[in-house]
């Protein structure tokens, strides 16, 4: 079974600075997807960024980028120019692709989350 580990329960950063959130995972699969989700105090789960394991290029979305190290099974999230609105829980998640012959469905496996606070 796949596992996802986020080793930083809480982090804080000053507004406009850069912060990196860590995530490691364990899998025997060679093809899979990795995600970062943001959960602000409103409780809404918001997709931040998605990475496909077969792509060597690191995904980026505006101020958010990842450092995907497949051999090390590491998937960290870098937030540049942090804003007050970035304050939230951040969850790393793993998904194994589904092959029709195997039946079933992809299921996201989540880490326990990192609580990020951006200070003014």
């Amino acid at each position, binding site marked *: 079974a796949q596992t*996802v580990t986020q080793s930083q329960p809480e982090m804080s950063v000053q507004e406009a600075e850069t912060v990196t959130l860590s995530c490691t995972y364990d899998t025997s699969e060679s093809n899979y997807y990795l995600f970062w989700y943001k959960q602000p105090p409103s*409780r*809404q*789960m918001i997709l931040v960024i998605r990475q496909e394991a077969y792509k060597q290029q690191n995904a980026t979305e505006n101020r958010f980028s990842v450092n995907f190290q497949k051999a090390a099974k590491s998937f960290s999230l870098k937030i540049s120019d942090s804003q007050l609105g970035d304050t939230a829980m951040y969850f790393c998640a793993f998904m194994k692709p*589904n092959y029709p012959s195997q039946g*079933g469905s*992809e299921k*996201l496996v989540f880490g326990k*989350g990192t609580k990020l606070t951006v200070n003014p």
Partner: protein
Amino acid sequence: NAGVTQTPKFRILKIGQSMTLQCTQDMNHNYMYWYRQDPGMGLKLIYYSVGAGITDKGEVPNGYNVSRSTTEDFPLRLELAAPSQTSVYFCASSRKGDSPLHFGNGTRLTVT
């Protein structure tokens, strides 16, 4: 589009009571999921469905039941509520299996 809509937003149940958490999506997604989120924890999958008429157990299905009679709706039934079911429940949907999930706003359930 409303996306994924969950009702109610909050609910308090007494031990042994039953209730249904409603979830509906208007994106014509085939895949739907129910997760629970306990304090300080990530989300754990309760049940999922790959299409109307098809459901399957996730990681923590005990004490719950689901049905999927239509593409749009995926209700979660709690029978004989227990304090261990106190949690925040999220419904989600996706267009296909490897697509990102769209989440509802969650239902906070307290069982006392």
